[in-house]
Structure formats: C-alpha cells, structure tokens
C-alpha cells in the first residue's frame, strides 16, 4: 500500500490538497492552512478531552436538569427521571430516543475514543477498516446528544405561566452541555490515519500481493 506519508506527502485537513511535507509544520499551498503530517499528540489530546467529558458527565446525571414549579411546588427531575416519566406515560419510543441521545451516545463516544486510543497505542488485534468506520460513526453521533439541552431550553421558554406552572433549568444543563462539547472536541482531536499507520508498518514486514487492486479508486455512479 502506498500512503501519502511514505512518499513524503500529506493531505491538508482543511481543503484535502496533497502537499509535499518539507518541514514538520506545513502551510498548505492552496488554502494556507497550517498543519502537520499527523495531528501532533493526537492520542494525548483525545484522551484528555474524553476524560474531561467523563468527569462532566457525572454531575450532569446527578444534578436536576429541569425544575418544574406547579402551583408553587418545585419538582426536580434529572435526565434519568425524565426518561422514567416517559416510560410511566407509556411513551416508549420517546423514552428510547432520549435515553439513546443523552445517555448511550455520550458514553459510547467517550468509551469508544478510549478504545480507539488504546488500540492505536498497543496495536493489539487492530481491525483498521472496522475501527475507521466506528470512528466515522462516532463523529456523526456527536451532535445528537445536544437533544436534551434543546428540549430544556424550549420548555423553559414555553412553560412560563406564572404561579400555575413554570419550568426552570437546573444546574445539570451546564455540565451536560460541556460533556457534549468536550466529546465533540475529543473526536476531532483523534487522527484516524494513526490506525492505518500501524497496518502500513506491518505491510512492510510481510509483503502482500493482494495490495495491488487496493491501490485503485472505486468509481461509483
């Protein structure tokens, strides 16, 4: 497999132009974006942001995200108890959507990034193709965790009926927003090409003949 790195080339992350890497840090010839052949300290940054997200995820679940005042009596609800309320009402699809968006997605993102960092670091049973797809999916999932924040924002603006019923946001909304933000930054810090670098090194040791047809672009209509 011929990679850009082997040829002393690198693709600009902003405009996807192939550049010759004469120095460690390079300014793209087309769009003047400053970049490196691989994101520097990519694994460390990914790990740091993922841990930060995990730390924020705890208070996001412990503190109430929404406080409902009906006839002056406050009733606090956390993310989990909000999901429980939907189950009580029998609205299972909505419960599943919120559970996925606000519990499963952040956890999968954080754990998945830990997993990818671990795989790149150790190189144990690395299935590059699968892992690259997994990383791609993690990137797509990211924004959907904002769902709960948007719901609370809308509820606060809508249910503003004085003494009868008022909804206020709880402190968890801050931590939850930070969790989403940090997981998105963590996913962006990860460089998927690191997954493939390991494989490229293996290729040198055991020359693979089936590689020839892999070096062709597939053209689809």
């Amino acid at each position, binding site marked *: 497999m011929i990679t850009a790195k082997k040829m002393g080339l690198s693709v600009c992350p902003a405009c996807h132009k192939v550049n010759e890497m004469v120095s460690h840090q390079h300014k793209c010839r*087309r769009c003047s974006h400053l970049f490196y052949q691989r994101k520097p300290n990519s694994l460390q940054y990914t790990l740091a942001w993922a841990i930060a997200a995990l730390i924020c995820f705890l208070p996001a679940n412990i503190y109430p995200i929404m406080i409902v005042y009906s006839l002056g009596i406050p009733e606090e609800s956390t993310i989990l108890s909000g999901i429980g309320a939907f189950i009580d009402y029998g609205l299972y699809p909505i419960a599943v959507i919120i559970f996925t968006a606000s519990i499963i997605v952040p956890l999968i993102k954080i754990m998945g990034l830990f997993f990818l960092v671990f795989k790149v670091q150790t190189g144990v049973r690395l299935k590059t193709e699968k892992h690259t797809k997994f990383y791609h999916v993690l990137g797509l999932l990211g924004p959907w965790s904002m769902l709960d924040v*948007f719901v609370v*924002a809308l509820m606060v603006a809508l249910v*503003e009926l004085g003494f009868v019923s008022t909804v206020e946001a709880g402190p968890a909304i801050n931590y939850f927003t930070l969790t989403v933000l940090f997981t998105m930054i963590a996913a962006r810090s990860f460089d998927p090409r690191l997954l493939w670098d390991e494989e490229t090194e293996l290729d040198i040791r055991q020359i693979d003949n089936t590689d020839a047809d*892999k070096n062709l672009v597939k053209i*689809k*209509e």
Partner: protein
Amino acid sequence: MEDEALANDWLACHQCDALYVHPQLNDGQRAECGRCGATLFERKVNSIERTFALSVAGLILLIPAIMLPIMGITLAGQYQEASLLDAITQLIAKGYIMVATLVFMFTIAVPTVKLIGALYISYCFKCNKIKPFLLHFFRAYHQLDSWSMLNVFLLGIVVTMYKLLDDTELSIDSGLLAFVLLLISSTMVTVSLDQHYVWQKLEQECIDDNG
C-alpha cells in the same frame, strides 16, 4: 513548478492516508477510497446554480424560522408561545449564559454564516469574480460543517411536544413550518455544494493571478 504539477496529480485519502493518482470523473460520479471506503470526492451536477438557489431560499426563511413562534401552549386559560429566539433569551435571563451561547451558536449563528457563505461563494462563481481571498474564506466555511445542529433542534421540538401533550393544550405555529423548510434548504446546500470543484477552480484562478 514541476513539483506543483506532480502534486496536482495526486489524491490522498483524508481518513487512511492512501495515495492515488487523481482519477478523471464524469458528472454525477463519485470516487471512493479502495482501502477504507471513505468518499474521496464527487462531481456534482449543477452544483453552483443549485447552491445559489438553495442558499437564497434558506436566507429568506431564516428570519421567520428564528422569530416566529414555533409552538404555543394553553394551560388554565393562559396562553404562552415560544420561538427559537425566546428559548435563548429565556436561558440568558435565567443566568445560563454558557448554555445560551452554545445553543445560539449551534442553531442560529453557524447555520446563518453557512448560508451567507454558500451564497457568497456561489455568487462569485456565477459571476466569475474569483479573488484570492476566497481561498481563506472557503477554508473557514469548511470548518463550520460539523457544528450546525438544526436537525437535532427539530428532534428537540418533537420531544418537547410529547412532554407537554399530556398536561396542556398544544398548538403548532407557523414558525415550525419555516424552521423545517430552513432545515431542508440548509441541508441541501451542504449536499449540493461541490467542495472539490470549488477548491480546484480557486486554485487554478489563483495560480493564474500569481503568475
């Protein structure tokens, strides 16, 4: 200049770093990485015209989608309605400045800047007014892609409706229609803008300018 011509013939996958000779595609075809399956680039049909039309449509819908009430509730004889902007101002009023800023960024600022950017780029291409500074402009435009969350907000509207359905009388307002149309046009702008073509064209023009 020789090196430049050489590097123009290369195409590298941004996801797995595989290096290819730049293939020639016809309109409507798509090049896919043979190693990891990522899309390398596409030749989109009528990209500039479509982007121009859709971004104009999006910008027209922008103000009603933000300002008009999305839905209203009636409870014990009281009526209350809220728009996207109300949701943000309420968060500010309650002291959640950081959350309000991020919601504003993801649902208003980024989509607006993206639409204006797409309109400006397609206008410059239509009228052949390509200037070197567009290179920087388009790079900045590129960075915004993953921060637009209109689709998530729409799901948020649906969930809020279900939350309020039991206890209150719910009414849907014209803002929701404008918002859905805005979401559709902003998504289609992203789909129809051929970034590979824009970059290649900009590069050609700017090399001409320099030489």
